[in-house]
């Protein structure tokens, strides 16, 4: 906590951040990879060689070939095209769920840390309960009450992410509250809302940005785990986790069904994690030597 306080005490300008981030090759490569994956998803209609939903019953479970780079699936659909299209779904799951969870968590953390007292206690106990509550049960509840579908999967994952952000932001808010300029602003009568928005929120952001990046990967993996227990994206979605989960019973018969979606997930999650680590190094004042 004291570390976060000192860390956030001074705001680093964007150029300073970029100067230090640029020097790190691994996060830069990771960032480039993410950009490529996003571009591929955005331009899927132009890149994908086949219609990702068009079945071809005469050509099922074909291994990789020049025509079908990643082979075809159980319905004869081109797996390469499905992965490119599926990037839209998987990345949306990752981004949207993390932003929703992050937004709610930051708000809760700010309120909790700034006001303290019973508000803080209540908010933190609420986070405890949420963390202790098995995530899978929450997911089942969300999907059971709202019905199956990718948007409900997103809500379910957002709920997992919320307490993580709340705790993080509460911690740095506690530290920032003690800093000289916040104390000074308070003493000259700056009202609470502007104070929080202008002086405390920006200080918590470096940590939040790092976590956003790290949690995108986690969310994509959680979506895959939900597909594993049958509660993920519904057919015919080409969400990567669903492709991997549905293909797993063909292991030993048609390995390409899992290999390519698995690689897509692995590379994407790895890239987000490496990027997050790089951001942390670049944003954290403490690590500047």
């Amino acid at each position, binding site marked *: 906590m004291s570390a976060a306080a000192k860390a956030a005490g001074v705001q680093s300008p964007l150029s300073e951040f970029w100067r230090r981030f640029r020097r790190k090759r691994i996060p830069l490569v990771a960032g480039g990879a993410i950009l490529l994956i996003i571009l591929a998803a955005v331009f899927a209609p132009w890149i994908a060689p086949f219609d990702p939903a068009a079945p071809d*019953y005469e050509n099922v479970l074909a291994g990789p070939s020049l025509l079908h780079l990643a082979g075809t699936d159980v319905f004869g659909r081109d797996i390469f095209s499905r992965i490119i299209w599926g990037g839209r779904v998987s990345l949306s799951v990752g981004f949207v769920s993390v932003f929703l969870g992050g937004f709610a968590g930051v708000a809760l953390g700010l309120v909790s840390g700034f006001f303290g007292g019973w508000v803080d206690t209540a908010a933190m106990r609420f986070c405890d309960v949420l963390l202790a509550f098995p995530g899978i049960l929450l997911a089942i509840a969300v999907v*059971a009450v709202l019905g199956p579908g990718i948007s409900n999967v997103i809500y379910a994952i957002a709920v997992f992410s919320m307490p993580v952000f709340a705790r993080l932001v509460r911690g740095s808010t506690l530290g920032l509250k003690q800093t000289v300029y916040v104390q000074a602003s308070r003493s000259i009568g700056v009202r609470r809302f502007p104070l929080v928005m202008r002086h405390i929120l920006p200080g918590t952001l470096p940590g939040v940005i790092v976590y956003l990046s790290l949690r995108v990967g986690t969310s994509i993996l959680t979506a895959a785990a939900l597909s594993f227990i049958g509660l993920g994206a519904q057919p015919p979605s080409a969400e990567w986790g669903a492709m991997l989960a549905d293909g*797993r*019973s063909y292991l030993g018969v048609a390995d390409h069904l899992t290999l390519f979606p698995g690689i897509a997930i692995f590379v994407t999650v790895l890239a987000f994690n490496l990027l997050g680590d790089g951001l942390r190094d670049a944003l954290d004042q403490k690590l500047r030597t």
Partner: protein
Amino acid sequence: MTRLLPRLVLSAALAAASAAPALAAKDLVIGVEANMPHLDPANTNDTLSQTAERLMYQGLMGFDKDMKLIPALAEKYEASEDAKEFVFHLRRGVKFHDGTPFNAAAVKTNIDRVANPDNRLSRRSLVSMIAHTDVVDEYTVKFVLSSPFGAFVNNMAHPGTFMISPKALAEYGKDIATHPTGTGPYKFVSFATDTLKVVKNPDYWRPGVPKVDTVTFRAVPESGSRFAMLQTGEAQFIYPLPAELVKAAQANPNLAVINAPSIVARYVAMNNMKKPFDDIRVRQALNYAIDKNAYGRIVFSGYSTPMDAPIPSDLGFYSKQGVWPYDPAKAKALLAEAGYPNGFETELWGGTSTAVKRGMEFIQQQLAAVGVKVTVAPLEAGVATAKLWNVQSPADATMQMNYGGWSSSTGDADWGLRPLLYSKSFPPNLFNIAYYSSPVTDRAIEAGLATADPAKRAVAYKEAQAQVWKDAPWIFLGVDRLLAGQSKKLSGVYYLPDGGVLTEDAALD
């Protein structure tokens, strides 16, 4: 909380102590799909528990490996002309595992237990038609029914009427579920979380069996892991074997694949009371729209046969109607005639397993080709019960289409038709989720139940099946093949058409 913790620690320690595995020459390990809830036959409903119960328990009647009814603890029976009185002559000299002799009094104790509403046993409906059970002499027992019930003898082969030692029943009460004591070929040893172990019964009444020393059932939910277990020799028999892994099993020289007919029918129930499915032309169109051969090939890797009657061919009184032809042009014409030239949008429900989702996706693709836009909605098991089975009146039903399967646990046409297609079987009573109602079918189903005469029953069920086929309340898809993998060293384990397994004659080289 205070009292919970020490108990937790104690029982956990016990569990840890009993977890040591032992392997000798004649130990048979069977890998199964799920945990068995418990082992009280009168209170379990899943095929897996019933299979496990068959290790230790038997009924008056039983099934052979072709699921034909055979005498078990009864040697023969007589039925009255009006299907209201049934006399069973019992096998002599049979003893329960605890030494209690098996006789007519034991039969009465067991049937009365299941029939007594105060015991709240979930299989009571199997015997609820019995007015009274009479002990005629030591080895003869008579059932008098309150109304005619032609399928009664089948009910006496159902696990729900397995014979439990009266002494054990008195001793354990409700805990009989964890102290199984029957007359079967194996005796109970232990049942912890996901593993059931039984040992051979040396006093078994059939000479020469059992031929293995112990049988262990282990629950391995993930199908890839279950198959791995067979490949490494940790199990000698696994079921079900997913159709997509058959190729891998066949490639392994140590393994054999069991590929047998089943009585599991797969179909899409359409809500016959709701638009657009209240129009018979729409229902027929959807039947024309689906290529049943491709369904078997794609969804079950070829291990499925197209349905050619409302019930599978291995069920008693099956009457062949011929496979519904695949004709998308005709489907489109019928839809246009019914007022849907551009198709319509609808929702298809089903389960969440990979194989079920594959089937739903296939139906979605096929119906899209005739303009019907389907949203696939896999429902979690609990949600499905609420939305399908617990609906209080037809008007409340929100189902449009549901992809599901059914297997008649009595092996008889009655339980293949009546719960699903009889107008008095709308939920929540039974499972007619298609809300199909036809006076002709109703009369035929009632006629089939009103007699024990096989010839009369055959006529009735033939009429019922012809009518159902004509009315097309479902999209008729396919009948599963039963697939299991086994070690070539193993013989005498039979996979029954209802998905159960017989292990009585199991032998290991």
